[in-house]
């Protein structure tokens, strides 16, 4: 079921245009050993499924498919779990319709 959902989101993101700022992730996850409830919530909450759990049980982010909605900032910036910025000017998602 989880894999099915993952495939579907990737298929959705594939429709979008992006200009990826290679090597400059605009959102960073604070290094941790055990993820906070907020970080765990982002695994399901992020509409682009940017947050994934690695094999060591820590939450990681890959910002390439980010749609810049700001949901993770609202949830996990207050706790200091993530550092949130907009991408540099011109980079990130480029909506054709919006």
């Amino acid at each position: 079921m989880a894999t099915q959902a993952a495939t579907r989101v990737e298929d959705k993101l594939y429709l979008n245009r992006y200009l990826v700022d290679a090597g400059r992730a605009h959102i960073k996850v604070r290094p941790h050993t055990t993820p906070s409830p907020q970080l765990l919530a982002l695994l399901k909450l992020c509409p682009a499924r940017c947050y994934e759990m690695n094999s060591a049980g820590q939450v990681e982010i890959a910002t390439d498919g980010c749609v810049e909605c700001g949901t993770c900032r609202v949830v996990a910036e207050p706790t200091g779990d993530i550092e949130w910025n907009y991408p540099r000017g011109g980079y990130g998602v480029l909506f054709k319709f919006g």
Partner: protein
Amino acid sequence: MIEERFDAIVVGAGMAGNAAALTLAQRGLKVLQLERGEYSGSKNVQGAILYADMLEKLIPDFREDAPLERHLIEQRFWMMDDNSHTGLHYRSDDFNEEKPNRYTIIRAQFDKWFSKKVQEAGAVVLCETTVTELLQDARGKVIGVRTDRKNGKVGADVVVLAEGVSGLLGTRAGLRSRPDPNKVALAVKEMHFLPQETLEARFNLKGDEGAVIEAVGTISEGMTGMGFIYTNRESISLGIGCLVSDFERTGQTPYGLLEKFKSHPSVRTLIEGSEVKEYAAHLIPEGGYKAIPQLFGDGWVVVGDAAQLNNAVHREGSNLAMTSGRLAAEAIFQIKSRRDPMTRENLALYRKMLEDSFVMKDLKKYRDMPDLLHIRAQNFFLTYPQLVSKAMKDFVRVDGVTKAEKEKATLRSFLAARSLKGIIGDAFNFARAWR
């Protein structure tokens, strides 16, 4: 980056920012507008419905060349359970008027057009430029912005923050707090393309006519939320949004909810065979009147979604954005004309103008609605839709059960689910919040 000083800097080129920049430039002020996308619109997400009245105040003849999709002649409200919907439809040929009141638009295209008007009015519009920080003097007065361009500082007498719902700059500068998860909804949306004739046949439309469907019920899995289907010329904007705090609590995924909405028997046939061309997500301010932050200060004002100006009950946001942007610009122009400084005291004029407009009056009217719908989400978004659906099914099905028995069963099902006291309480609270 730019040596010269400006009368005003507008951060952001959405509805609020464009309305502000246009008005300021039209009044002859020297304006710099900064936008992080490659053009105005490329980062902007909305359903989207445009209200003519608020745009007419800015660009009276907008119908001549604005990229409008369809004018709306039909509104459908659906209350859904898993297999059915109970609907309220309003359709009128009166909406086929010379100057229609509501249109569907596609934001990336509309905003690009709007931005062209801003440039023609004389504003300097600089895209692909992210503002990273507000510049403040020792006393906290905002004196300009820092951008991510080389030597990226620019100064101005006043900064108009039209930075959108996240409001990063204002939060960072301590002008207001970050929106709470229970005061913003996360909406996800897809663009479904269909041949124009197919779309018009499915929605019973001809020419430029358009229809809107807004739906609540079991589609939001007991969360405070709403699904929407808007007809564009040859595409359908389809999406669903729920409070972020509800997503957090339930562990539902936004894309899972979207897929479920799309596969509902009442929706599936409308989008059958469509080609999906984009997937977007966006936050919507839902806190209403009580969530409005400080709107002005020394050297700054905040407009649009960044000021949480959104009427969730009537699903109006972009017109509040346009109006707040325009009023902020008019206040700035008046202060400037008097050769007064852009102090907190003087910029209070913006708040006053907003109080006198429909923006604050409407939001004040519904100030208790967000709390009611958010706290009692289960009743309004799950229990009642299910009860109504059951009652409708019993009403229309002819199966030998007497009408008296059916009515009794319906009444019993309502009482069992919510109790008489509960139903009266819900009705009373709803009426009071609506008043």
